[in-house]
């Protein structure tokens, strides 16, 4: 077997040096009833590299590849171009096959990357500090609610109706077990501001509120000013948690930190990480300096070595499970190291100039697409302000339309009926994402296919 270096001669001589008569003698502590005498049946036997490649390529070929068709799906994961050098760097064995940097003298590469990552995320979000990443945006969102509970010692979180419904669903699941109260509401496709429920949020904040959780741009693509909400939270001793599922937006719109958010979390996938059918992604998590000890996840910090040279270590680890055990800020043990590296390399290639340019290209293409699609009979643009994603109201239920488009080889967006099957008022909604990868021809194809489907 190509991954196993021991030869039978090695095995025999090693067993002899151990003093074991056979390999079975090393498994005698396993209760007899649970010892398998032979190979597990009903599973394939070993296969060559060529054979595995063929089998997996056959499976992969059954999928419609986003990059090969007109593609408009977003809602929490976005298709952006990833520079070739990003994928090259993350495949260097020194990054790919290293472990959590618990021995800092021989892990300065990973640690310095994490320090750069934390600095980039903090600046992107407009916060003082960021951690070394979380599993993804949705889990980071729940961790932020927990952090707000620890800081405020209150357990009522008010969730915006514009928050990604899968994030809401996850929070619902977790709150059932932790005893947090979640105040939620069904979204409405208000003209000019779909999913915006600022008035409701402002009214809901009271002395029991730990935090308000608001996504910007929201699930419908709507962009809002969070400043008033931040002030209202602070007036009642609550925190504002802002969620960003499309980080490229922050190359164009004010960061949540600038608007007063106390904790900013989100999905980092757009920068450097592919769609990957939902994972792995990279959760971003930032906050103000004064709350850092309540922050979950790993943190990398600067220090010096015995010779006085600058270096980096994992720090403030007493917050974490391996020391604090049942009193830890979170049970999380890993971050999304390699995806954080991809984010950092891509962000370093972009720099501020590149990020702003990327954002402006996204916005321009989205504005042009929205205007073009709104001309299709039976299509209405719901959004006023948006970045690279917007909601259309169709004259028909959107789910069958999406299916029809897919049959024609167009991945035309996300039907709101898929995300909110129980809300009939949203059934005609279609959320369309447009990035730098979307061409004018793609938009034309979608427009004409929509026109046919709605006729």
């Amino acid at each position, binding site marked *: 077997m190509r991954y196993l270096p021991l030869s039978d001669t090695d095995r025999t001589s090693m067993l002899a040096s151990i003093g074991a008569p056979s390999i079975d003698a090393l498994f005698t502590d396993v209760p007899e009833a649970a010892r398998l005498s032979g190979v597990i049946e009903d599973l394939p036997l070993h296969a060559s590299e060529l054979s595995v490649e063929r089998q997996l390529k056959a499976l992969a070929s059954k999928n419609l590849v986003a990059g090969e068709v007109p593609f408009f799906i977003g809602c929490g994961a976005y298709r952006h171009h990833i520079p070739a050098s990003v994928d090259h760097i993350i495949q260097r064995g020194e990054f*790919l096959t290293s472990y959590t940097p618990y021995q800092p003298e021989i892990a300065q590469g990973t640690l310095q990357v994490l320090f750069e990552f934390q600095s980039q995320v903090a600046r992107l979000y407009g916060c003082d500090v960021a951690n070394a990443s979380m599993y993804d945006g949705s*889990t980071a969102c729940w961790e932020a609610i927990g952090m707000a509970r620890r800081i405020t010692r209150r357990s009522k979180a008010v969730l915006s109706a514009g928050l990604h419904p899968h994030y809401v669903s996850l929070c619902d699941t977790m709150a059932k077990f932790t005893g947090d109260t979640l105040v939620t509401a069904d979204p409405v496709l208000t003209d000019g501001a779909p999913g915006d429920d600022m008035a409701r949020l402002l009214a809901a904040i009271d002395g029991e509120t730990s935090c308000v959780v608001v996504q910007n741009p929201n699930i419908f693509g709507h962009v809002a000013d969070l400043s008033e909400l931040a002030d209202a939270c602070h007036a009642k001793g609550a925190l504002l948690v802002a969620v960003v599922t499309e980080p490229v937006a922050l190359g164009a719109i004010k960061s949540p930190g600038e608007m007063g958010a106390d904790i900013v979390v989100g999905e980092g996938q757009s920068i450097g990480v592919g769609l990957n059918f939902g994972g792995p992604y990279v959760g971003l998590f930032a906050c103000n300096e004064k709350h*850092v000890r309540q922050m979950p996840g790993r943190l990398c910090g600067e220090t010096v070595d015995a010779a006085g040279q600058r270096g980096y270590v994992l720090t403030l680890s007493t917050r974490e499970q391996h020391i604090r055990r049942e009193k830890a800020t979170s049970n999380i043990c890993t971050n999304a190291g390699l995806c954080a590296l991809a984010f950092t390399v891509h962000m370093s290639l972009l720099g501020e100039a590149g990020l702003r340019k990327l954002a402006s290209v996204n916005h321009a293409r989205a504005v042009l697409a929205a205007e073009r699609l709104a001309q299709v009979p039976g299509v209405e643009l719901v959004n006023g302000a948006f970045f690279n994603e917007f909601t259309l109201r169709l004259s028909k239920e959107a789910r069958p339309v999406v299916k029809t488009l897919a049959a024609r080889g167009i991945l035309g967006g996300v039907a709101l009926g898929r995300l909110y099957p129980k809300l009939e008022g949203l059934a005609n909604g279609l959320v369309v994402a447009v990035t730098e990868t979307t061409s004018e021809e793609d938009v034309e194809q979608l427009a004409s296919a929509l026109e046919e489907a709605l006729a």
Partner: protein
Amino acid sequence: MTINPSGWRPERALAANDENEGGGTFTGNRALMLEEKLIFEIGDSKSCGVDFDDVPEVASRLGGLERSAPIGLPGLSEPETVRHYTRLSRQNYAIDLGLFPLGSCTMKHNPRLNERMARLPGFADVHPLQPAETVQGAYELIHVLGQWLIKLTGMNSVAMSPKAGAHGELCGLLAIRSALEARGDARKVVLVPESAHGTNPATAAFCGYSVETIPATKAGRVDRAALEGRLAPDVAAVMITNPNTCGLFEREMVEICEAVHAAGALVYCDGANFNAIVGRVRPGDLGIDAMHINLHKTFSTPHGGGGPGAGPVVFSAALSPFAPLPFVEKTGDTYILVEEETADEDHSRSFGRMAAFHGQMGMFTRAASYMMSHGADGLRQVAEDAVLNANYILRQLEDVLDAPFGESGPCMHEALFSDEGLAEGLSTMDIAKGLIDEGFHPMTMYFPLVVHGAMLIEPTETESKASLDQFIGALRSVAERARAGDLSLKAAPFYAPRRRLDETAAARKPILTWRDATPAE
């Protein structure tokens, strides 16, 4: 004749002189050991390593929320970026460079076929919200991998969405709590052996349980009498790692599971050490109710400097109805994704969603590629070689390092030593740092907590005998120095990119992000 016009002739006499050590360098570099500043020190806000296609100017629709203040993100051209991160990469130790004996972490070789397969556009470039009919191959891959996991563990069902081991633990405990609550039996306590990984008590607390610790016996296994003595109607679950973190198989696992079930509680098995038994033991046959599987340990997906991982959870029949959403189901020849909307009838008891989408697809592809490569026969050999390698290390070193459980039977895939017998003033930390100078990543240190100065060594099956022998020689040498009181070990490492780092200073005044130098006033 013209004698040597360039003047170039070999001169080794001075270079071979031991007393001539060289001094500091202008750059701070030491030949291939290259210093590298932060991106914030070498980049600037104007530089960019990406070109864009032009787009027409449009009137902004950002609602007046334009980001006008500087963001402070430095950029570099592509060649500078590639060089920056390549230079940083060389300051890391990695499996590709040598044996990586971190106990309980299973740092095995990461096959590159897995990387190629994960990058097939049909897996890498598909969106989680694509219509089901356009992603049948992706659903099928998840289903196939799930079947492998079910059969290898002898369990009833699998939840694929947990994103790492600790997330898997959370998944398992939430299912347990849901099952207990469904039968109207809210219980409040989770029992955890003192040798457990810290995530176990942290997860139990996260789920709202109070945690009680069960002691270990002198032989390094769970104290069954103490465990059974604590079983009562308030105990919801017992979390057990098997093989355990002392590197031993829990011989009485079947009896423990029976006792726990008889008391109305459930058994969560931490599957971190599954690599020791894959293909040779099915945990389901021991009587457990739930177990997570770290795809990044047993099934070779890369650790990537600390993630991403993947932690699918297998369930017994009793817990299967409570598994989280979403999951893939096969109906006839097609695969469907069961989500909140489709869960109403058949899956109404699911405890809900724990991640935005359906799990770590990129890790699934890699793990599937690995399993298909090894097959059921190869995986069995994996466990055998992993256990053989660990026992070889244990027996080769127990004369210079104290093996507290050396008499407790063969170890499984990791060998545990303590700091007993080291000279005054020398510790496990010093041995670890001495190993760095020998060119090895140290073992897991100071874990498990039940052994003083623990050193937990897991070689994995992907090391050759020659590699093991070299490691054994290096550790023997360092251990002998530590026994003899060689205090120079206190200052190790000498040859790494950095000497020992000041963790106290890092924690007392945390510097977590780059701050631009403030201009002098």
